């Protein structure tokens, strides 16, 4: 019940932030209305990174405690993270088209980083799909989650430096650089959207975790059931043999 309220609050927050970003805040001086997509785009990217952090921490927790609930959290965070990251890339491309004239260009460090993040996230999810045994799956996923998270800061640095310690960006038309006409409102819009998305993120995480827990409980129940069934069958067999002797 509380989760449902959270969901509605999140939805309302997103709508509110969207309205604010689309209507209340004036258009960017240089980039025009195209700039508005930045609010959800940045928020998604940030939450994507947060998600992978959660996955890694839950992974460490699992390796330490061997509690499969932590693995369920890691899985949930990875799925939600991939969702937000994919949305961030889509947003980035939608933003790039009007501003740069192309959907993709390599000099924007954030776009390249986010693409790698998406690749890492999808790889994580594929790895999980290819493992059957829950314990093995959780262990492998934890290792990959940890290593991927450790790679992220290195990716950040390398991609930013890559752009050229001396080169001038060919796509950075100075007349197209960000130039908010009302800096205060701009910041509020950004923060507002971030807060709204974070609420939605929490909602999705809780729901996904609940789902994972149910899945896992069913699986566990099945495993216990099979063991009990094996024992009952053997007990029955023993009784039958005794009575026939």
């Amino acid at each position: 019940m509380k989760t449902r309220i959270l969901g509605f609050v999140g939805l309302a927050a997103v709508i509110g932030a969207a309205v604010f970003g689309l209507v209340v805040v004036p258009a960017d001086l240089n980039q025009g209305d195209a700039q508005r997509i930045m609010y959800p785009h940045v928020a998604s990217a940030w939450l994507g990174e947060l998600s992978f952090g959660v996955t890694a921490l839950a992974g460490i927790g699992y390796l330490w405690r061997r509690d499969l609930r932590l693995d369920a959290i890691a899985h949930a965070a990875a799925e939600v993270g991939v969702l937000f990251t994919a949305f961030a890339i889509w947003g980035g491309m939608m933003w790039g088209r009007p501003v740069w004239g192309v959907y993709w260009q390599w000099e924007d460090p954030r776009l390249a980083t986010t693409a790698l993040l998406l690749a890492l996230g999808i790889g994580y999810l594929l790895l999980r799909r290819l493992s059957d045994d829950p314990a093995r799956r959780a262990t492998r996923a934890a290792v990959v989650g940890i290593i991927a998270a450790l790679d992220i800061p290195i990716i950040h640095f390398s991609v930013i430096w890559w752009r050229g310690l001396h080169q001038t960006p060919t796509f950075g038309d100075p007349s197209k650089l960000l130039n908010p006409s009302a800096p205060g409102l701009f910041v509020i819009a950004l923060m507002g959207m971030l807060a709204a998305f974070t609420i939605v993120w929490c909602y999705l995480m809780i729901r996904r975790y609940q789902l994972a827990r149910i899945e896992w409980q069913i699986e566990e129940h099945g495993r216990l059931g099979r063991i009990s069934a094996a024992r009952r069958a053997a007990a029955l067999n023993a009784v039958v043999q005794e009575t026939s002797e």
Partner: protein
Amino acid sequence: MSVLRRGAATALAIARKDALSELRGRQASGSTLFFAALVLLLFGFALGPDSRRLTEAAPGLLWLAIVFGGLLTVARLHQLEVEDGAMEQLALYPVDRRAIYAGKALAGAVAMLALGAVLLPVVAILYAIPIGSAWLPLITTVALGAVGFAAVGTAYAGLTVRMRAREVMLPLLMLPIVAPLLLAAVKATTVALNGDPFGELGAWLQLLAAFDIVMLVAGAGTYGFLLED
């Protein structure tokens, strides 16, 4: 024997065993070398025949070839454990598993260093790169790249070797992780070949070293868990 000495003895014994297996394993490592060289040749057909374009792209092509060869190398170092079920024995020896990791990563790094060292002259010839005085920074870059790749490759190869679809899982997991390594190594190589006019080389080598250290620590910390069934 102190813990450190036993660990070093373990790691060296493993590295030595892997090196012997590599060298004697018929043409396995030779085949990998040849494959990487072939990749370089094929890039010529894919991007040529404009020599200038190829010369510009050479550092990137070199490192792509090293990465492809590296994937085969780290995979093979774990396949030899799985062939006859040796991995189970390895997991049961009363040794520090970080030492097992260190030994395997060492073997992998040496193999990749050899790969890179052989590919340098191949690239120099195919794409008309004057290596000249840049050989020292180039070898350093190759060494740092080899260590980093082997560090994370050993962990991921150990992880995927008993999985379904292991041939695709290893590259699938490795490529995004080594993207910054690739980036930095190519930059360092390019800069070194140009004589490093802006003094950037140090920064890139430091980035490579940082990657190496992070991955070695992460690998050593997690490899033990991967050995268990």
